[in-house]
Structures are given as C-alpha cells and as structure tokens.
C-alpha cells in the first residue's frame, strides 16, 4: 500500500476514532459548567497523546517490538506486572464506559433502558472481534466515526466565538467551584491521554510491519490525526458552552447531551448524536478490548493477532472475551454510565505516570530505538503533563468524591 494511502487511512482512523465516551462526556460537561474556560486541558491532553502515539509507532517501527513486549524485556516481569495490573484495571473501566455509551445511545434511540442493552452490546462487540477480521472492522468503524464531525458543524451553526475559544487555550484559574473545575480538567486530560490509544496504535504498526521508512508517515498520522480529533472535542465543549452554559444548565445525565446537536440542527441533530455516540463508542470498545488482550498476551509471550482464528490464539481470545463479559456485566448492573465514564477518565489521569514513564524510558534507550530516540522536548512535555495531571488528580478526585459528584 502506498505511503500516501497509509497516511490517508491513518488520518481517518485517528480523526474518526478520537471521540469516544470519555472525551464526549468530559468535554460536554466542562462546556456546560465552565463555558469556554476548559479548552486548555483538551489542548494539553491532545498534545500529550499526539506525542505518545507517535512514540508508540516509532517504537514499533524501529525496535520491531510492541510496547508490552518491550516493557517486559526492559523492566523485567515484576515491574511489568505492576504496569499490567494498573493499565488493565483502568482500561477495563474505560471499556465498560464505552459499552455504557453504546447502550445509552440505544436507549435514546428506542426508549428501552440502557442496562437491558448492555448484554446485546457486549455480544455485538465480542462477535465483531470473534470474526477475526479486525482490519476491516477497524477501518469501517473509523470511517463511520467521521460522523462525529457533526459536532464541528454544530459549533459553526451555533456561531461559536472562535477568538474567545482561542483565548482559553492557555491554562487559567477557576472563578468559582474550584474543586469541580480541577476535577474536570483532570478528567479531560485522562480522556485525551488514554493509554489504549498508543498501545493499540503500536500493535497496529507491528501488524502492518512498519519499519524505519514509516517514521514520517507515523509523525503525520499522529500529529494531524490526534490534532483534528482534539479539535472535535473542542467543538463538543464549545457547543455545550453555547447551549448549556449560557442557560446555566449543568450536564449530569447523558440524556441531556443530545440537545447540543438538536438545537442547531433540529431532529437530524438528535439522530446524528445517537449515531455519533453509538459508533464512536463502538469503535473504542473494540480497540480497548483488543488492547487489553494484547497487553496480557504480548507480555507473556502468547500467540496473538487480531486476524488469527480464535482457536489459533485461544488465550488471547479468552482475555478479550472475559474483559467484554465483565464490562457488559458492570453496565448491566445499572451503574450510571456518565458517572462511570467521568470517573474512569479521572482515574486514567491518576495512573498516567505509571503508564507513560516506561514508554518514555524505552524511547530514550538506544537498544530499542537506536538513533531515533526522543527529543528532550518531547520527554519534557509528556513527563510534565503526566506528573502534573497525576498530582492534580490525587487532590481533585477525593475532593470530588467527598463533595458528591
């Protein structure tokens, strides 16, 4: 496949696959609560994930190792198991959030409560992975995921003041409700810097057999793909600011969010919202389930591969099966999907140092990346954002829990 085609496909995947339950809910809630003020965590988070995704791709292309594989080799099984447990736990909660999102979309479409949809959704996600033709599924889901661009359209229709948006790309202090502000900021960063994104991207680069010649392609896809994706999240926040903040309405239920599109776009807005939520979360659910399986299988040296028949990679298959089963079960219990989503995002931010520092160390180890090591700016940016996000999360999460979300 020509490199240009690869770039195009990669961009589509990056843009179409960026928005999911986490970025949608956190951006919408933040827009409703604080207007345009919380654009800066989206910017920070997007910059961070763009760096990390690029690193994941570079690691795969140069070292020919996937991230979990390299981590186990470099740090030994003990440290690896700590990272494994942390990432699997957090990823599992995010997976459940995505299944919750799809179920909610179906509730909005049909009126049947989301928890009854959970088993159906889980089965559908599982079936698509079981069919082991993930390349097709992924490209299809990402292409369909471009429907999330409707949020950008809506933002234009709502006449979002773009210069005001731009002004808030830099961090600012809250004028009211400090605890909630920082909790939201941290959740937004957690939503943008989801580990599954760079783990999955790295595995994809190995499956596609990337080598050093793909480093340029990698940079373009990571930078522009994530960049545009972040732009969609900003559009969600801006739309929510226009529709909710101006009226002083807070978002605390998923069912309110469609108004964001319904107001500027009428009935079609509602339909496209349901489609966006469902498709975006579906694509993410597939990737996260696979990523959990990759992490375990690659860390322990088992056979793995998204295009292998289940009987050819039985343990790998078992891992994603159990992950999806449990995630579906969690949503079936009726837990509030919005609360679960926001909380998982905050938890992701909290766990960032553990998930990110090993990758950074690998990216500076000539044994793995040869002369293609990290520029010190990339290290500094990612390290800084991760550590600050973690520290803020340590403070903000308990405060939020005590204050009642």
């Amino acid at each position, binding site marked *: 496949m020509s490199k240009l085609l690869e770039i195009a496909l990669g961009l589509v995947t990056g843009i179409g696959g960026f928005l999911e339950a986490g970025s949608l809910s956190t951006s919408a809630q933040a827009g409703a609560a604080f207007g345009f003020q919380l654009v800066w965590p989206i910017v920070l988070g997007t910059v961070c994930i763009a760096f990390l995704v690029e690193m994941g791709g570079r690691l795969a292309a140069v070292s020919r190792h996937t991230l979990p594989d390299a981590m186990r*080799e470099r740090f030994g*099984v*003990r440290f690896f198991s700590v990272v494994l447990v942390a990432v699997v736990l957090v990823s599992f909660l995010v997976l459940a959030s995505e299944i919750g999102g799809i179920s909610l979309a179906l509730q909005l479409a049909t009126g049947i409560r989301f928890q009854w949809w959970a088993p159906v959704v889980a089965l559908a996600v599982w079936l698509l992975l079981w069919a082991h033709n993930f390349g097709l599924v992924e490209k299809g889901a990402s292409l369909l995921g471009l429907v999330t661009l409707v949020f950008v359209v809506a933002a234009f229709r709502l006449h979002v003041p773009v210069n005001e948006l731009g002004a808030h790309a830099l961090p600012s202090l809250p004028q009211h409700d400090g605890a909630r502000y920082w909790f939201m900021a941290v959740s937004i960063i957690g939503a943008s810097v989801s580990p599954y994104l760079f783990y999955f991207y790295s595995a994809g680069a190995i499956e596609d057999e990337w080598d050093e010649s793909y480093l340029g392609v990698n940079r373009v896809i990571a930078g522009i793909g994530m960049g545009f994706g972040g732009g969609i999240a900003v559009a969600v926040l801006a739309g929510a600011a226009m529709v909710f903040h101006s009226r002083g309405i807070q978002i605390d239920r998923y069912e309110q969010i469609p108004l964001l599109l319904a107001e500027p776009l009428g009935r079609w807005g509602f339909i496209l919202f349901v489609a966006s939520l469902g498709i975006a979360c579906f694509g993410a659910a597939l990737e996260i389930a696979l990523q959990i399986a990759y992490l375990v299988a690659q860390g322990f040296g*088992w056979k*793995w591969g998204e295009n292998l028949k289940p009987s050819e990679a039985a343990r790998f*298959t078992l891992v994603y099966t159990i992950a999806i089963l449990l995630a579906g079960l969690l949503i079936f219990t009726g837990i509030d999907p919005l609360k679960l989503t926001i909380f998982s995002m905050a938890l992701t931010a909290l766990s960032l140092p553990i998930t990110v520092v090993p990758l950074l160390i690998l990216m500076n180890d000539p044994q793995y990346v040869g002369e293609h090591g990290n520029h010190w700016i990339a290290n500094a940016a990612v390290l800084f954002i991760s550590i600050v996000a973690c520290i803020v999360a340590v403070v903000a999460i308990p405060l939020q829990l005590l204050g009642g979300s």
Partner: protein
Amino acid sequence: MELGHAVLDQQVRDRKGELMGKVDGIVLELRGSKAPRVARLVIGGGTAARRIHPRFADWLLGWRRRWGPKDDQPVEIPWSQVLKIGIDVKVDLDAERTSAWAWEAWVRDHIIGRIPGA
C-alpha cells in the same frame, strides 16, 4: 553479552518462528573452580510467578494443579539449542512438541473451542 539485558524476559520463537513464550528463567551451572556456565532457559511452569513473589507462585501453582493441563511442566531449553539471540531468542525446537502450548491447547479445547465459529 549481559544475560539479564539480552536474554531474560525476551520473546522465544521456535524453529518455525512461532511464539513460544518468554524467557522466564535462566539456570546457571556452578562448577567450583571453573567459570559458571549457562545451562538452560526456562519458560513457564510458574517461573515468572516466582519472580513476582514466591508466595504468589505457591498460590498460583496450587490453583493450577486443580485446573488446567496435566502437562504443566516448565519448558526447559538447553543452551545448546539456542540458535540466535537478537530481537528475540530463536531456539531449535518445535513448540508443539514441548509443553509451551499446554495451556494454549487446554484453553482452546475446554473453553474457546466449544464456542461455534472458533
């Protein structure tokens, strides 16, 4: 070369290039007045678990005895059968003929294989 750096926790591939597991352990033979020699590589059988914590390994092994394949022995690869050490460790064996895939086969036969379409 440095053993921990270059061999331990590396991916092992058999002579057909199939994934066999990770180097969970390495056994050295002490020979008194002669330099110790690298005797063999070990895959599985609770070796990795022991490195995490011996108690964890005991708990895991107890659980594994009740469930799982009968042939749950670690794969012992004599050093003489190591062909190449590079991106991964290539060995002169057929993974199928070892216990490397005992668990893979067990999961396939008892769980995954029972679902239609596997």
